[in-house]
């Protein structure tokens, strides 16, 4: 039965996977193991996205199905599922910009790669980044932005992090629509990524620089 949830979710068979979930709950299966199967499927979906086999609609659809599964299973869960996390990242779309599609994809990819992502949402004021870094002690910050106005907002965010005395404690990566090396230089960030896969590999190498080798799951 285990295989069923995993492969049905990977193949985005919405009706089928929900039926299996319901069935497994009915026969008294452990809700935690259902969620862990679902998570395992999401990792494969993420890998397929990374390899160009899956595209944004597949991620969006799988995310919706996952939410439906969790809506069915959550009431039966007795404890929090324990997920091994390798590192913390503070993430958000910078002030003035309300675009979230790209940000959400990167957050999803970081999440399935084991990072604990503190997603601050869109149009995030610089101070909110600073506070979250202090609160969580996250050594990595991801700034997203689609519009060209984000270049300045990113720069201001980097400056605010520096002013707060946190610049040496964090590595900052930026990304979104037009972001390239010229913008990275302009903003004072440490690195930029062209897509979600680049963000994952940047996050991994930043973590290793700051915190030593990753503890793999």
């Amino acid at each position: 039965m285990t295989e069923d949830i995993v492969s049905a979710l990977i193949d985005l068979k919405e009706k089928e996977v929900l039926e299996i979930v319901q069935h497994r709950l009915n026969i008294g299966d452990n809700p935690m193991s259902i969620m862990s199967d679902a998570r395992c499927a999401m990792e494969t979906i993420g890998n397929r996205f990374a390899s160009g086999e899956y595209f944004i609609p597949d991620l969006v659809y799988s995310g919706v199905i996952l939410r439906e599964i969790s809506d069915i299973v959550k009431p039966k869960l007795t404890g929090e599922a324990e997920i091994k996390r390798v590192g913390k990242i503070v993430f958000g779309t910078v002030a003035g910009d309300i675009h979230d599609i790209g940000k959400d994809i990167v957050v999803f990819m970081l999440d399935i790669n084991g990072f604990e992502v503190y997603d601050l949402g869109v149009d995030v004021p610089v101070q909110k980044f600073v506070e979250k870094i202090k609160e969580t002690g996250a050594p990595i910050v991801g700034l997203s932005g689609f519009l060209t106005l984000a270049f300045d907002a990113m720069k201001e965010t980097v400056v605010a992090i520096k002013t707060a005395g946190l610049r040496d404690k964090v590595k900052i990566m930026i990304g979104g629509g037009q972001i390239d090396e010229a913008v990275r230089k302009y903003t004072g960030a440490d690195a930029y990524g062209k897509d979600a896969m680049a963000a994952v590999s940047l996050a991994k190498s930043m973590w290793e620089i700051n915190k030593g080798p990753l503890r793999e799951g």
Partner: protein
Amino acid sequence: MQKKWEEMPSDEKQEAMFQKWLSPKGIEFTSPEAEKLYKQRVTRIRDAVQLKRLPDRVPVFPNVGFFPAFYAGITAEEAMYDYDKLYMAWKKYVLDFEPDAHVGVSLAGPGKLFDILDYKLYTWPGHGSSPLHTYQCREGEYIKADEYDAFIQNPSDFFRSVYLPRIFRTLAPFKKLSPLTDILELPFVGFNLIPYGMPDVQDAFKALLEAGGEALRWGSVASAFDKEMAQSGFPNFFGGTTKAPFDAIGDTLRGTTGIMLDMYRQPDKLLEALEAITPLLIEMGISSTSRTGNPIVFIPLHKGADGFLSDEQYKTFYWPTFRKVLMGLIDEGRVPFPFVEGGYNSRLEVIRDLPRGKVIWWFDLTDMDKAKQMLGNNACIGGNMPITLLNVGTPAEVRDHAKKLVDTIGKDGGYIMINGAVIDEAKPENVKAMIDFTKEYGVYK
């Protein structure tokens, strides 16, 4: 004797549209020099499009958003609310930079109109966005997943009674209106009109009349601007506008998530809706260009970019109706000008399937060498001057990139120098470098 429009092949229609653009009605040029420059500019663009004659040089057309406002020292909010300042700023930009074509003032829409109607679909400068920034779309499912049938059956009535009340708070009472097509016989008329007597519906109509007054004030500023610019020798690049059917439904009706789920959950309904909206979008492009007498139809593209859809999804859901829109415009002598924001590397093979010399593809981050190789014999391509260089680079870097584009993509014609993404906060000296360098270096010998 002149041939009737219906009898002309699309080549002749396109040439006739260009002739109309070359000799605009009601324009008295300020000097013989202005007239000469105007005609040279339009001819240069025409030759780049048609791929029949080599233009005298690479046309250069910075596609500016709010750049003229920032350049002239007014805020984005002022550009949307104070039409005198809007006019002054955009005029200063055109006269100072002397591009081959301008974009008019209409992209900075009438702010007060949006206030009157309480527009929920966007945030705009000073109203949800900073006064210094451009407007942004607030995506949502403004049409629900189970409303396709109602939309397909009568798109116009659906817009009036369902969609508009959702995106304009002020027009919410329009929900009460019955379809106009019910008015068939004498006894039906009274019933149909009852809602128009209700106080809240009447208030909504009064607001709509006020909004119309505002639109007219703003529209007359926009046409006065185009007229003055033409008389001084500068054509407006945009003849009209429309959208690709998939974007029309995905951007502002169903939203990104909505349309993506529809591809899996109700693909046939989505395909039916795409077909239903296609003739409306063709007509939108044709009627807007009829008003201006300029054949170029701007089509901003979004959800077909690399990564957004698989090849199969693009070929199933995006391209068939988009191609119908392009062909519908081409058949009527119009020149579609799709703006491919992001990349289109995976689509080049597909979009090649169009007649020669009919389209201008404006590319942003697409691999230009590949685009030239795949489309160069077939269509005019433009773009790829990186917005990042214009914003944070130096004039020397801009010139280097422009040189590369002119040498490789501009070789043998069929190229227009355009920025990659829309120009807002760019450095003026960089925009100037893009224009001046192209004028100097882009001459065909």
